[in-house]
């Protein structure tokens, strides 16, 4: 028996100036279904979600909610009709209690019956299996629990459709499991869930149905069980299967006996990594592996002096140098793509052009601005080289998709022609296609003689790119792997046993 259809969208079109974001897209959500919406950045996922939630108005097409045609004019409309949304960034108030967060702004009365509110909150939390107490301050809950509370809040608004936009991106494995348990509970209650994520494994773990979008067009809807992972990826990318499996394992360049390009001894920083030794040779790609919080980011930040360096000796091409600030590091030919693109990477209001030339411009100095023509030439050159999709050079970087923003930051560093480039999570939160492009680029740069450090949360990605992995645990290096020892098994083992 076909389950009842809650939401049906037909022929949805939406255009923005210069872009056709959605072109005749159909979408169906059934009762008690977990439906993964997949696509690369810019495929139209967010636009579709924003139309469902009333943030955008569709240009054409029809939406039916339980068979009745509807038109959402505002997010309030959509909420009133039982559509709840939980975004990646939690939109709650950390300084209020759990119960307050669940009910605030939802009563018409000027006075609050605290006792009743806390009691209802407790019942809800209990029935959904959320490990939190109603009177606890929200900030004291883990991110995962906060996310669950956001869901509980959405669910209590009589929600029939729940939209989860990248809910797991800041959760660890355990927390993700708890979130999935909650999703299954809601599914059993007949809630239709739209799930958006970049983690393909999670899609296969929890979803029933997959809808794939590409360039604003519907590619198709498939039962999850009948679509293999590789087929899914190829549909998202619009490339033949053989193209994808062609990213072969990297052959490390022959390391010679020459002096390392960069070497550090007993390096430590104010961010609290244990003093460590590190060296990288010309044309080498190495990586710091370890769990979140193991100190891998702090280590590379110490190399770039992004945190205050508190001790250690640094040699560049054998010469003792002092690196006390990011500018010192840049002057030594080191580039650093930070882990958090939004906070440390992009200057969001500035144009793509300014964002590309920034590092080069700073290296040239305050009194030597590039001419506008020069800047535009450089920007154009790298936009072409990295295939950055932007309407113009003057477009503020914040209006590009995540993958394209990341490419702009890459362009920024490549433009300075560094001899050593540190990439901390360059592929986080970006689409599969760009991921592959970045991996290929890293290997190409190394082949041309650049040294690179590549960090990623996805171990297989690091195994593909790096010829040597430095394994970290609890802010300490616990081992190093290279050559034939470089397997996922060994990395796991080192992390599990290391430091004991």
């Amino acid at each position, binding site marked *: 028996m076909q389950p009842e259809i809650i939401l049906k969208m037909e022929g949805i079109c939406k255009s923005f100036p210069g872009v056709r974001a959605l072109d005749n897209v159909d979408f169906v959500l059934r009762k008690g279904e977990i439906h993964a919406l997949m696509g690369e950045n810019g495929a139209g996922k967010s636009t579709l979600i924003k139309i469902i939630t009333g*943030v955008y*108005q569709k240009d054409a097409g029809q939406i039916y909610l339980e068979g*009745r*045609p*509807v*038109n*959402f*004019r*505002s*997010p*309030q*409309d959509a*909420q*009133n*009709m039982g559509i709840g949304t939980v975004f990646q960034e939690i939109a709650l108030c950390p300084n209020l209690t759990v119960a307050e967060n669940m009910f*605030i*702004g*939802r*009563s*018409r009365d000027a006075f609050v019956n605290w006792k009743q509110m806390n009691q209802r909150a407790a019942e809800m939390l209990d029935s959904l299996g959320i490990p939190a107490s109603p009177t606890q301050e929200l900030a004291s809950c883990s991110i995962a629990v906060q996310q669950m509370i956001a869901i509980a809040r959405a669910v209590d*608004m009589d929600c029939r459709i729940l939209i989860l936009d990248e809910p797991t991106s800041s959760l660890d494995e355990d927390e993700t499991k708890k979130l999935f348990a909650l999703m299954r509970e809601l599914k059993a209650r007949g809630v239709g869930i739209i799930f958006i994520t970049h983690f393909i494994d999670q899609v296969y773990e929890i979803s029933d149905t997959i809808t794939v979008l590409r360039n604003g067009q519907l590619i198709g809807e498939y039962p999850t069980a009948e679509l293999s992972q590789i087929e899914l990826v190829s549909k998202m990318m619009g490339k033949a299967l053989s193209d994808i499996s062609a990213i072969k394992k990297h052959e490390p360049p022959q390391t010679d006996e020459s002096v390392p390009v960069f070497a550090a001894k007993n390096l430590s920083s104010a961010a609290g990594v244990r003093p460590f030794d590190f060296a990288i040779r010309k044309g080498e790609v190495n990586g710091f592996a370890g769990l979140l919080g193991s100190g891998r980011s702090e280590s590379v930040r110490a190399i*770039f002096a*992004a945190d205050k360096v508190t001790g250690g000796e640094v040699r560049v091409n054998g010469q003792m140098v002092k690196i006390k*600030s*990011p*500018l010192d590091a*840049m002057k030594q030919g080191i580039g*650093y793509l*930070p882990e958090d693109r939004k*906070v*440390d*990477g*992009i*200057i*969001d*209001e*500035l144009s793509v052009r*300014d964002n590309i030339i*920034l*590092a080069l*411009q*700073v*290296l040239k*100095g*305050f*009194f*030597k*601005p590039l001419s506008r023509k020069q800047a535009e030439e450089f920007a154009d050159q790298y936009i072409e080289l990295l295939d950055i999709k932007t309407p*113009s050079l*003057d477009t503020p970087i914040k209006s590009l998709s995540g993958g394209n923003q990341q490419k702009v930051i890459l362009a*920024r560093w490549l433009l300075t022609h560094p001899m050593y480039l540190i990439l901390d999570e360059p592929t986080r939160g970006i689409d599969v296609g760009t991921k592959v492009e970045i991996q290929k680029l890293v290997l190409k740069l190394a082949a041309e003689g650049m040294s690179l450090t590549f960090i990623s949360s996805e171990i297989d990605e690091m195994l593909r790119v790096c010829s040597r992995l430095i394994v970290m645990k609890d802010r300490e290096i616990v081992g190093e792997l290279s050559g034939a020892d470089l397997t996922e098994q060994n990395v796991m083992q080192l992390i599990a046993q290391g430091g004991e």
Partner: protein
Amino acid sequence: MPRLKRRFNRMSHLFLPLSVLVVLLIINLVKGADYFKITLINGVLYGNIPNILFGASELVILSIGMTLVTAASRGQDISIGESGAISSAIFVQYVLRAGNVTVWTILAGFLISCLAGMVIGAFNGTLVSFFNVQPMVATLILFLGGRSIAFIIDGKVSPILANPISNQIGTVIPGVPIQTPIILTAVFIALVVVVLKTTNLRLYVESVGVNPSAARLNGINPKKVIFLTFLIMGVCSAVAGFIAVNKAGRHDSVNLLKFIMMDAILAVALGGNSLAGGKFSITGSIIGAYTIEVLNRTLLRLEVNPEAIKAFKAVFIIVLMIIASPVVSAYAGKLLDRIKGITTGYSPGQEVAVSAVDSSAKKEK
């Protein structure tokens, strides 16, 4: 054509100040058609336009500095009038003690007052950038104490600056048809343009204002950049104080450039700049400053009771800020969409009417 369009896009933030300026000018034209009339008296141009340019000189210069401080530090300097009063007090004392006043005396006095302005800027800048004090709180110190310091330097009430050169700087130089403050302002603006063209000031200030953390990781020292903008602000205050004191012919430490920071901040906002820092438009602030001067003079011309001018100004500004607010522009956009919908025969009649019945009960997104 695309280039033209691009240029137009780049200028779009000037739409608000320019349209306000145009509206004010039209009001003035309606009041009297001879508004733009310029007459030559003793070889000098007089009229409404020269008066506006003359009157707004100090404000224009201060609004340039305020734009930079706002962009980098995400806050405002409220001590600019006091800073101008102190540096001009030093200028006056230098000139009064020099005995024989030549052009060189004035120039030396001016440079010394600029130096004093930089010292004040460095004081504010140190508090803001190195001690992370909020700009308004840091500059509150001099806002409160500055005029007393100026008075102490004066040594008495309103020392008179009576020498022919100062008089010429405050009014006209014989043989030149344009009043001197207008020329000085133009020279100052030209200097700022040259600085912006030959340095990375804009890129550094905007980067720091938008995202100090990312700016730092790209080799920019946000503390130094913020400090620099306060130094520049100090120079702007000194130049404005110099013009003001020469215009007045005496140093009134109580009233010189009094409350001018309010107009300077307003000029920055009117120019389409965010008071929360980031990208900035000096052109916008300059137009904003002139607009404020035109507004003041328009109210006078409309024979508004001088006591009531401030209230009128306040109402005008409230209306302006509401029109410029994102809320209104979003609403205007929606209204336009709806009009378009009606004209293309779009009928929402068949759909379930879902009006926001109790938006107050739901969480605002």
